[in-house]
Every structure is written in C-alpha cells, then in structure tokens.
C-alpha cells in the first residue's frame, strides 16, 4: 500500500489520517518488544504526539493531522528504529499475591486436566515463573504478559463468561493476565488477587507498566 516503508523485519505505515505504525513481522519476541519500549520512550520525550501505544511487537503513534506531517513521522520512526538498541532497562519487579483455586479459580481443574499436571503442580509452575508485561490494552490497567510456561497454555473457554470478577488471574491460550475490573471474558480462571491493579484517582493509575517483571505469589492453602 502507499505510504509504506519497508525495512526487512519491520514496516512503517499510516493508519487513517492521524496514526503511524511501526510493525515488526511475527513471531513476536521480547527483544523486539524492548525496541518498541525504547522507541515509545524516545517519542514521549519529543512531546509532539497525542498518544503512543505499544502493542505486541508494534507501536501506534497518534498525531494531530493538522499539526504534524504523517510521512515525515514515518521517516522519523524508520530512522529511530535503526538506532533502537534493545538496551535492557532494569525492570521493575512487581509481586502479586494470588489465591489459587476454589471459588477464586474455578478453572484450575480444567487447566490441570489439559496440562496433565496436578492442581498443585499448576500452581507451583504458574507462580514459579517471572512474567514480562509486553503492553497494556483491552481494559484500563490490563497487562498482556509473556512468559507463560508452554505446558500451562490452555485454550480459551468455548463459552465466555458474562462477568469475570475483578482481580481474576487467567490463562488464555499462551498468555496469562489479571482482569483489573469485572468484565466479560473467555480466559480460564485459576485464581484471584486482591491487589488493586487500576485506580483512576492515583497519579499513576496502572500498577503494571510495560517492561515490568511480574511474579505471582500463592496465598494460603488452596481449596480444590
């Protein structure tokens, strides 16, 4: 399509009259996501853009179409992408206490059945792993995390729940995450946390931010 710059592993294009996108070819990797975070940080310091939104190995930059030239922005993005080293910033470590199983995690048995692990092994595996927040989306403060051990990957529920309680910890395909607020959802729920993930009255409303390293900490005995 027009207005596309191609740089082998990444492409740069406009979406509508007021967004520019950096898009890296799949499969998604953490090293590419680090370049996305670096690029987002650099663009934020330039204070010319309305929104800078990391996705999974892509970045959407929203601009004022009457104050900013989209093609010039694409060239700027392509130039920065070449410089983007995946400099590893020291990640913030966030621990999230979780009550696994029972009413808090009604799908723990399903994940156990699907993985062939016992429920205790599912909990030990899920809480024994460091996860990385790739980006936020879906709902305020919802973190898309990478790093779920392959054996825990479980397909989404055939029938999504009409309401998933706030704080629910779930597995959807090869991803894991927490619902900051009650919402409909199709993930397999294995536990729940009381930690507030999103508070619009806080200066930094989201507990989790891209680049964070997250660890789930089991609370008390679970009641399967």
């Amino acid at each position: 399509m027009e207005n596309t710059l191609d740089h082998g592993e990444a492409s740069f294009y406009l979406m509508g009259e007021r967004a520019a996108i950096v898009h890296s070819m799949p499969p998604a990797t953490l090293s590419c996501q680090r370049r996305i975070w670096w690029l987002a940080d650099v663009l934020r310091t330039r204070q010319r853009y309305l929104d800078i939104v990391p996705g999974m190995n892509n970045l959407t930059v929203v601009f004022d179409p009457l104050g900013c030239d989209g093609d010039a922005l694409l060239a700027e993005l392509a130039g920065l992408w070449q410089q983007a080293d995946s400099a590893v910033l020291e990640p913030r470590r966030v621990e999230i206490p979780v009550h696994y199983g029972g009413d808090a995690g009604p799908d723990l048995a399903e994940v156990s059945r699907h993985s062939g692990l016992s429920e205790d092994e599912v909990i030990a595996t899920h809480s024994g792993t460091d996860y990385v927040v790739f980006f936020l989306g879906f709902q305020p403060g919802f973190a898309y995390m990478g790093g779920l051990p392959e054996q825990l990957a479980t397909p989404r529920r055939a029938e999504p729940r009409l309401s998933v309680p706030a704080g629910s910890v779930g597995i959807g395909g090869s991803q894991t995450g927490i619902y900051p607020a009650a919402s409909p959802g199709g993930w397999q729920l294995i536990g729940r946390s009381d930690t507030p993930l999103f508070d619009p009255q806080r200066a930094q409303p989201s507990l989790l931010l891209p680049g964070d390293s997250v660890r789930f900490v089991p609370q008390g005995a679970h009641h399967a």
Partner: protein
Amino acid sequence: MLEILRPGVQTTVQDLGRHGLRHLGIAQSGALDAPALRLGNRLLGNTDDCAALEIVLGPVEIRFHRDGWLALTGADFSATLDGQPLWCGWRWPYRSGQCLRLNGTRHGMRAYLAVDGGIDVPQVLGARATDLKAGFGGHHGRALQAGDQLPQGSAANLARRLGAGHPAWTPAIRALPGPEYHEFSAAAQAALWSQPWTVSSHSNRMGYRLQGPELAREHGGELLSHGVLPGVVQVPPNGQPIVLLADAQTTGGYPRIACVIEADLWKLAQARPGSELQFLACDAATARAALRQQQAELKRLDWSMQYGH
C-alpha cells in the same frame, strides 16, 4: 445545579474525552458527536473542555436550579422549556425552577445539552467524560438516573438568543483504506465502497456494527494485538464490519479494512439502528481539509458572536 427527572435511554456526562492515556488501556470516551458538543459550548461562551450531557433518544426531563443559559445541539429532540418550544442549534435563557423536556426524535440519535459554565463534575484522569465500561468519570462513572443532581460552573453573562447552522447529516461516510485493506478479496474491496451498510441494533458507544455482504479476507495470517482508534473499521471472522467509536478498547486484533475520517465520525453517532450508510473512499489530504473546514466553521461562529451580524 441540574436535576434529572427522567433520564431517557442513556444520558451521560461527556466532554472531548481522555487523550494521551491509551498506552494504559484507558479508552478515549467523550461525546460521539464532538462537533455538536463544540458548537453547544461555543454558543454559550464556554471553553471547549466544558462537559455537557449526551442524550440518547428521549424522553428526558431536567429541572434547573439557577438562572442561566442552555444550548441544544446534535439531533433535534423537539425540546420544550415549561412547554415553550426551543430550537435546536440555538442558545436560550432559563430560570430557576423551569423544566426542560426533550421529547425525542425521528431523525438522528444523540442530542447535546450544554449549560453555561459546563457540567462541573470532577475531572478524572484529565477529563470529565464518563467511562461507562470502566466505571469512572462523569457522574459516578455511570449513566444518569432520575434524582441525580449535577453541579454547574459559573453563570455566563449573555444577552440575546443566538443560533448557528448545523451541518446536514448524510449517509456518506468518508474513509481511507486500512492497513489490511489489500488482504481482502477484490469482491470485498468493491463491496465496501459500493454496497449500503445497515446499522445493527447491537451498536453502542464502543462501536457500530454494520450488516451487509460478507467481507472475505484472502491473505494474511492472524494479527498480533495492536493499537486501535475511533474510526478504525475492523472485520471479525464473520465478515461483518465494526466501526470503532469513542468507548472502544485501546487495542485489538482484527484486520482493519478501513479508517473513517475524524471529520465524519459524528455521522455515525447520529445514525440510527436500521439506517443505511455508504462508505466513500478518500485520501489523507481530503481528511485534513474536512477537519480544517470544521474548525473554520467554529471560527466563523466566534467572529459573528463577537462582532454581531
């Protein structure tokens, strides 16, 4: 202070929405017909960031508890103030104790009631707009109910009634081809621009679902989650497009066949379920010119208010 006597189908406090927070998963929210909100605020001498009421269908009744001025914009809801008809697109004085009634409409979907000083609910994350999904902003993060009382900003010192022209609604929605446009079949590309699209009853502030010929995607695999904006036209696997609006989530994964230009998003806000829309292909220069024209119309109104006729 304003008192809600009858709330109607969905009346919410809205301003121009939240910006710069999409990376936290925070939706834009704000008036779906932003030009109508801007017009109402300008008529009253309010700043552009003042909040007003977005009213979906009627009937709605509101009582005023101080003297002041109001402006009605957007869809014409055959409004009356203590039984006296009020024209849409004009500002009117009201007195404490008077009751405003918005009866409803045969054309359009959303009316905007702006008041002098604006609806003075607290700002949350930089805006007064209601985020219905996340439950914050506006009046306690929800649609208004009978008995709700809303604070108002300072009264304006205005002298005469005043009206302004509204743009006429047409079913023509201008759009640019989206990032995955070329992955759709030739038949789908042609159908997008040539076929009428019916607004589904499952349309809301998050998005308008359209019904028409199935849009088949021929190439391209599953997409990784990416940022989306109001105006993006997604095509889920059922082939029926969804135009995202102000309350849409910040990221998505469906292919984007088109992007409705910002200057035409208000037309979706005023399209009723069952009505037909037509997409018109345009380019970014046309999209910018349309935005400039909207700004110029507001400027012209400012001048005419400042210097008389």
